[in-house]
Every structure is written in C-alpha cells, then in structure tokens.
C-alpha cells in the first residue's frame, strides 16, 4: 500500500540517490571530487544520528564517539599497511617508535587484516552502543540525562585517546596513512573509485534505513519518540527497541568514520571532539531531524556552503551559522524541510481566520 506521503518520500530518495551517483559525470576535478566525498561521508554520519534522535528520540550528544572509533580502526589498519615506509624496523608505526614503544601492542595485532579492521570499525561502535544502551535504557533513563551521559562518554573517549599517546598518537592522532586496497581495487581518496565507495555507502544506508523505518519496528521507534510510556503499556519492550536504534545509528557512524579517515588520510582526537559531535546535531536539526533524507541533506548543504567560502570569511560564517541555527530551533523545529509545511499552515490559518471573521460578521448582522 502506498499513500501520497510514502510516494513523495520514495521520489525524494530516488532523486537524491541518482543525483549523488551521477555527480562524477559532471565533475572532473580530483580536488572537488574529494571535497564532495567528504560532504557525503559527513551526511552519512548525520543520517545515523537522525535515526537515533529524530526517529527514536535519543538525543545523543556523543555521536562523534562512534564516528571517531570507526575512524581510528581504519586508521590503525591503514597505518600498518604503510610498513616499512612510515614505520621503524620492527614494523612499528612511527609515533610508537618516537614514544619508545618496543613491541606492537596486542590490540593493534588484529589490524593487520583488512576484514578484521573493517569488522572492528563497525563492530566496536555497535558493541559500545549496545553496552551503553543496555546500561542506560534498561534503567529507563531518558531526555536530558541521556544527553549528559552520552556527552560524558564522548569526553572520556577523547581524553583516553589523547592520554594514551604511546598507542594512539596523542594529540596528533594517526597520520600518514596508506590507501585502502581491497580485491585489487585501490581507493585513492582523490579518485572516482573512492567517490563511488562513499556515495554507494550513503545510498545503501539511506535506502536501508528508509526501508527499516517503514517496517513495524520502525513505526514502534517513532511511537517511542512520541510517548515511551504508552508503547510500554501496549506491551512492547521499549528499551530493546531503543538499544536497536542506538546500535544501528552507531554502526552507521562507525562506517562513516572509517570513510572519513580514508578521505582525510589521518585520524585525530578532533574526530571525537565535543565540537564535531554537536555540529552533527546542528546539521541534523538544520535539515530536519524527523527525516533521514533531510538530515543527510542538512549535513551536506551546511558543509558544502562552509567549503565554498574563503578562509577570511570563515569566522563570520561560523557566527552566521550559529545565529541561523538558533533561528531554526526557535521557528522551524522540524528543520528546513518543514518550510513548505509552515507556509501551508500559515495559509490555512489565515483562511480559517477569514472564515471566522465572515461568520461573526454574519452573526452580528443577524442580531442587529
């Protein structure tokens, strides 16, 4: 069965996917292509956030933690692939040599294998999300406290990454990475191959989550956002669904993080920073937290706008962006996507007011 809303959503998804996949036909410049891949990847991360926040009502201020963990997993693998260029004689990454580490730590060992590393890049964020979700949602913690706990988790991971300089590269993070090569295909971040990898991941995730939100489980997630108690009274295990949404969201963020480390060719603690994490929330809210596509577009648009500005204007841009964001929260809580809705609503309201005026004049006449 297809109503007009689902039809519109389907058309939106199709146009977006086609546009994203056909873009390289128009662009030939490697640098621009690399920039666009980066925007798409940030869009992918925001898509994940929208699933947890917009759909299930989990305001996760620590989304960048999952993103950053994915990025570090990929960076660890790609660093070990540079042997022996950026490593010491023992196959140790350069920063470990500088920090007098003599043997590769045990948790680095699995990152010699690409499939293990990729599994870890998605699996570790998912595992963390399940554990944290179990810890938090089983106790029926909601709202502001979820925001504070996720923020604390983010800060903890960030501090640990900086503190364990011997194993994580500290402030500088893991730099000078190799290119990912899988099955003989080399993903040079400035190539069309890499663009298709990021665009493909985004389209697959978007369609996948889009379908998921239209299943029964997806509907329950939205019901939980609107009123968890009622869903509980109907006999559903609310926390299980919350954990599911949280884990999916974390997995998508992990995937985006892996791609991000590849496109920028490094991973640093700023990927797990409070600023990036809250920026993702901003992008999501600007586009429209209640729609997966709108949230993704929000991230892409804000970043594309930011990327097209000159260095000198960047500071003023941040100021404008902050103001713009405050206005959106105040007047368009559903994001830019709801502009049409707002205009329609206004029009309907003026119509109604006119009808009321008409009827009251009639009544006044009748009395007189």
């Amino acid at each position: 069965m297809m109503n007009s809303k689902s039809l519109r959503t389907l058309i939106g998804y199709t146009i977006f996917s086609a546009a994203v996949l056909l873009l390289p036909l128009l662009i030939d410049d490697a640098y621009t292509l690399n920039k666009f891949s980066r925007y798409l990847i940030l869009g992918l991360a925001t898509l994940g956030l929208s699933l947890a926040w917009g759909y299930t009502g989990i305001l996760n201020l620590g989304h960048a933690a999952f993103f950053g963990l994915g990025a570090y997993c990929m960076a660890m693998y790609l660093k070990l692939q540079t042997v022996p260029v950026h490593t010491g004689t023992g196959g140790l990454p350069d920063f470990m040599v500088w920090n007098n580490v003599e043997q590769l730590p045990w948790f680095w060992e699995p990152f010699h294998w690409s499939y293990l590393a990729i599994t870890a890049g998605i699996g570790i964020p998912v595992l963390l999300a399940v554990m944290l979700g179990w810890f938090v949602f089983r106790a029926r913690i909601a709202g502001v406290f979820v925001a504070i706990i996720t923020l604390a988790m983010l800060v903890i991971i960030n501090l640990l990454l900086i503190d364990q300089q011997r194993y994580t590269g500290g402030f500088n993070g893991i730099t000078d990475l190799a290119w990912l090569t899988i099955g003989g295909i080399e993903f040079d971040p400035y190539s069309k191959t890499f663009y298709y990898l990021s665009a493909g991941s985004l389209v697959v995730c978007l369609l996948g989550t889009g379908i998921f939100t239209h299943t029964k489980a997806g509907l329950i997630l939205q019901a939980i956002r609107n009123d968890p108690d009622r869903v509980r009274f109907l006999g559903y295990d609310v926390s299980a669904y919350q954990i599911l949404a949280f884990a999916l969201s974390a997995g998508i963020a992990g995937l985006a993080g892996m791609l991000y480390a590849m496109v920028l060719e490094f991973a640093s603690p700023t990927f797990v920073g409070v600023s990036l994490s809250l920026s993702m929330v901003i992008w999501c809210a600007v586009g429209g937290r209640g729609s997966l596509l709108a949230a993704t577009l929000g991230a892409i648009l804000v970043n594309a706008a930011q990327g097209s500005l000159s260095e000198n204007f960047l500071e003023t841009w941040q100021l404008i962006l902050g103001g713009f964001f405050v206005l959106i929260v105040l007047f368009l809580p559903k994001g830019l996507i709801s502009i049409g809705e707002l205009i329609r609503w206004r029009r309907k309201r003026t119509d109604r007011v006119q009808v009321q005026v008409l009827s009251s004049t009639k009544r006044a006449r009748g009395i007189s």
Partner: protein
Amino acid sequence: MEVFISQIFTGLSIASILLLVALGLAIIYGSMGVINLAHGEFVMLGAYATWFLQQYAGIGLIPSLVLVFLMVGSIGWVIERGIVRHLYHRPLDTILATWGIGIMLQQLVRLTAGAELRYVELPESLSRSVDLLGINFSVYRLFILLVTGLLILLTWLLLMRTEYGTKLRAITQNREMAECSGIDSQRIFGLTFAFGAGLAGVAGSLVAPIKSVSPDMGTHYVVDAFMVVVLGGVGSVAGTAAASGILGEVTAGMAYLLNDTLAKVIVFIAVVMLIRFRPQGLFSQLVRK
C-alpha cells in the same frame, strides 16, 4: 602529612573553581530546567571583560568583579528575553539553542578581540604566597576560596531570605500555581538567568589570571560544571557545593596517584554510574512531581 595537606588544598582549589562555574549553572538548570550549554561562554565573556577593563580602563581585578557581574548578567538577561524564554516547553531544544548561542558568542569574541591568548595580571597583594604550617599556599588561591565561600553565602541568602528567592522557589515547585498567586514568572526567570550568567562571569574573571584566556576556553568548563550539577542534585545550593568539593578532592587525589587525564576519566565514569543508579543526585531533597 605535608603532602596530604597540600593535596587537600589543591583539591579545594580545584573545587572552588568548579563550584564558581557550576553555581550559576545549577541555579539556571535547577529552577528553570534549561540546559545552558552557553554557560561556558559566559565564563569566557567574564574573563574577556576582566581583560578588557584592565587593558583599556585600568581597572584592577577586584573592583572589576562587580562590573563583570553586571555586564555578563545583562547579556544573560538579553539572551533569556530574546531566545530562551520561547523554549521553556521544549527543554531538550534549549540544549541546541544555547549551543548555537555559545558558538555565536565565541565567534563574536574571536572577531572583535582576536583569537590569540590574553593575559590578566594579578594585583601585587595577591600574587605572593604565604607559609602556613610549613606549607606554601598561593594567596590568590586562598582569595578564590574566600570569594567562592562568600558567593555561596550570598546565593543562599538570596534564595532563602529574599522575596525574589521565595518567588523563584514557588515557581520551581509549581509554575501554574505560582502564577495564579500573582507571581510574574517571566520576570523572575529573566532575573534568574541573568543572575546565573553573572555568576559565570565572576567565575571567568577569577580564573582569568591563572588560566589562559581564549575564545574557546568555555567548552572546557561547561562539561565539568554539568557533572557537578548532576552529582549535586537539582535545586540544592548545598548539594552543588558538596558535589564540587567531592569532585575537586577526588580529581586532585587521582591526579596525584595517576595523572590529570586519567583522574578526569575516572571521575566522569563515576558520575555516569551515579546518574544510572541515582539520577536525582546525591543531595537532592524529595520533590513532588
């Protein structure tokens, strides 16, 4: 023994700064339910105001405290009237809006005062150190402790012994009933936000001479301050004070045994555990919802 005493003192001095920053936040969150992520930026504004007054008007640190309180307080009032008051029925959105405000304030300062670090000088009388019981204490740290104590006392008196405080407590308990009794909750909320912002401003002025002053300094404070508020429990000045004392001492102790970063990590984990098992905080009184 000497190590022990100086450790306690270090802890107290961390605690006093935490408390200074958290006090305003606790009042705003406790009474209005607003998660104010721009709070760190109020601290930053206070630090810059102090630097500005010293640099261009030649006003010393101590006299500028009152001026800074009024300046940052009025900025807070304008923000509450202009933006925050529209969001009382959407508490989670206050997190987003105040973060946006924070970005704006940061950028405004960066554009006007520059991104480089600024330094605030201490008056002669405070930059010395004294020997007590054979241990060296910095006079300025003692001064901060003293001012923090005074501010706590003032806040407590304001909340418990004035008409304004009574009205605010009435609104916190039941806004509709308070309004029915003729209390103008809009006005009280405006003043409360201004008061919280002003306290953050004073905190900024006091930390300016010992920490570096930069446009993004606020971000470091706001998360820590939230941990204090959560630990202390909502709506209790004494709880906030006790929580910052605990956090300060534990951080100092852990930092002595391990290092600063790990100390912070452990403290944060402990606070997360606490939210899980006792979300009302350690010291909150029973409130009927």
